[in-house]
């Protein structure tokens, strides 16, 4: 207990020193947290129930439910005690803030050689105004172990979620990670994901951002063992005045590692999206293969996207390419659909969905895929035919 208390006060001190990040800092150039600082946040002391339509209980191998940062349901049979410190709060103020106010979170450890059937669902529900929560998740996946983990963030009200998730993939571990941000349209969300991969491990981390007034997800990946492979899939769909920010850093530290990144953004109305993706290839990381793509679709004249792919390469023996595009709905496919009798609005929605579906179709967990499809239909500007997949 005292260790934790010490850690908390140390982190609190660090946050006091760092302060809230401002757009003057390069990593926060496009995202201003000023609106978030105007609110006097408090921790929710009540114990609320965890009813939510986002629950995947019955479909998930294990579901842990948290309300306003408090664990309220689910018996964690994979509970582990390993100490993991890969979330860097020395330099990252929001991680320090999380550590200073740390609440419940999932501590999961998959023993070496264990393959978890199905998937583990971590459901975080935010409720009420002026409440903040600081969940801290630690996921340790042992040698040759395999697991799929889904974090879902939902809620109602003007609350603030500041989550930190640490994932360690040991040698040859296989991890399929989902972070689905469907927060209330009035909520703030900062999610920091830190991934460390050992030799020949294979991790996919999917970042879906649909909700929140202001939401940002940072994904930091350290490829720390030879032959490790990371896939980062991202999809952000914003409308109204939503601000959705995705920042990724992939650090190639060892030889023969590969990273594949595809982020897509769809912005309507006055929404703003940010993709800031950095790939670092260290001097020792020979034979690195890295591909990074960011594609964005703007549906209105006032929507904005800032796309900033960055490569930082410190050796010659690499295969890296990256690119970014920003476009509108293409006229040819739109005309094609309309020429067959489909109305303009529906045709547009179909094309938006088609743009996003590449990432949805790649998801391996059917109930999650379905949930994202439903959420996307709700997000699209007009009514979509509800059961799109029925004729498949």
């Amino acid at each position, binding site marked *: 207990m005292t260790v934790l208390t010490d850690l908390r006060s140390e982190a609190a001190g660090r946050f006091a020193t760092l302060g809230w990040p401002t757009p003057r800092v390069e990593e926060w150039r496009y995202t201003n947290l000023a609106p978030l600082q105007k609110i006097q946040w408090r921790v929710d002391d009540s114990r609320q129930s965890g009813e939510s339509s986002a629950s995947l209980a019955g479909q998930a191998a294990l579901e842990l439910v948290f309300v306003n940062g408090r664990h309220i349901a689910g018996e964690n049979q994979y509970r582990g005690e390993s100490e993991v410190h890969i979330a860097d709060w020395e330099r990252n103020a929001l991680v320090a803030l999380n550590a200073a106010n740390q609440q419940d979170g999932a501590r999961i450890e998959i023993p070496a050689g264990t393959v978890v059937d199905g998937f583990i669902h971590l459901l975080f529900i935010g409720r009420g105004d002026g409440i903040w929560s600081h969940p801290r998740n630690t996921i340790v996946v042992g040698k040759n172990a395999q697991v799929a983990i889904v974090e879902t963030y939902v809620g109602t009200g003007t609350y603030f979620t500041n989550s930190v998730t640490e994932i360690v993939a040991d040698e040859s571990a296989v991890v399929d990670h989902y972070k689905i941000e469907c927060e209330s349209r009035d909520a703030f969300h900062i999610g920091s994901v830190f991934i460390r991969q050992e030799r020949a491990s294979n991790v996919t981390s999917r970042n879906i951002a649909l909700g929140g007034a202001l939401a940002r997800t940072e994904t930091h990946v350290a490829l720390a063992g030879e032959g490790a492979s990371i896939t980062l899939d991202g999809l952000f769909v914003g409308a109204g005045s939503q601000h959705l920010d995705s920042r990724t850093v992939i650090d190639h530290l060892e030889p023969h590692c590969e990273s594949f990144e595809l982020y897509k953004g769809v912005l309507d109305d006055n929404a703003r999206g940010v993709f800031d993706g950095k790939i670092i290839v260290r001097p020792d990381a020979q034979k690195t293969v890295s591909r990074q793509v960011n594609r964005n679709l703007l549906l209105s004249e006032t929507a904005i996207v800032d796309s900033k792919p960055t490569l930082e390469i410190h050796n010659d023996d690499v295969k890296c390419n990256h690119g970014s595009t920003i476009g509108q709905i293409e*006229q*040819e*496919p739109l*005309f*094609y*659909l*309309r*020429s*067959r*009798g*489909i*109305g*303009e609005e*529906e*045709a547009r929605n*179909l*094309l938006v*969905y*088609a*743009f*996003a*579906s*590449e990432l949805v*179709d790649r998801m391996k967990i059917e109930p999650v895929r379905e949930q994202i499809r439903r959420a996307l239909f709700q997000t699209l500007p007009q009514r979509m*035919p509800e059961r*799109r*997949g*029925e*004729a*498949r």
Partner: protein
Amino acid sequence: MLEIKNLHAGIDGKEILKGLTLTINPGEVHAIMGPNGSGKSTLANVLAGRPRYVATSGEVLYEGKNLLELPPEERAREGVFLAMQYPVEIPGVNNIYFLKAALNAVRKHRGEEELDAMEFLQLAREKMKVVELDEAFMNRGVNEGFSGGEKKRNEIFQMAVLDPKLAILDETDSGLDIDALRIVAQGVNALRSEHHAVLVITHYQRLLRYLVPDFVHVLANGRIVKSGGKELAEELEQKGYDWIEEEVA
């Protein structure tokens, strides 16, 4: 069914059709032939309402309605179908879903009941046989990864499902081998009836061997310069287009 009167139209301010007049009655198959650049595809695109193609003067009446003021989807729902020269690939939009949505939009417009998934699949399977298209294609994205011939057959398949009153084929035959050509003709012939009309736009006479037209028109420099029966197509095939251009000049 379709009355085109002195139509002037073009793209990006460039006039391509320069006073085209043509009448098509129910039950008729018309072929429009002409050299490259004569305005064949412009005619097809103007009739279907493709953006950027603008009619500057003249009139197009379809079943008595002013076709040119309808948006493309309304034209389709009224029974006009364009089999495109270059069908676009739309990854992520499922073929079968797309076609079901299209058919139901058309049916709704006609005051018919929408088909459910089972009814639609049954219809689709039946029509797929006519164009000899494999069912596996149906679960792919619209035209995604289709060969040129498969795309054209998919156009004819869509036409068969939507059952338009006026089908316009814009160089559907170009780039097809003889088998694909036969299949396309088979699909169009299956649609022929006293209520349906077909406008075949082509550069070559090949397709017209399988899909015998009632009338053949020659388009040159944005106008129909000669009309005749099916024998005119053969004449063009033998002599090329030069003699017509000379005759007209």
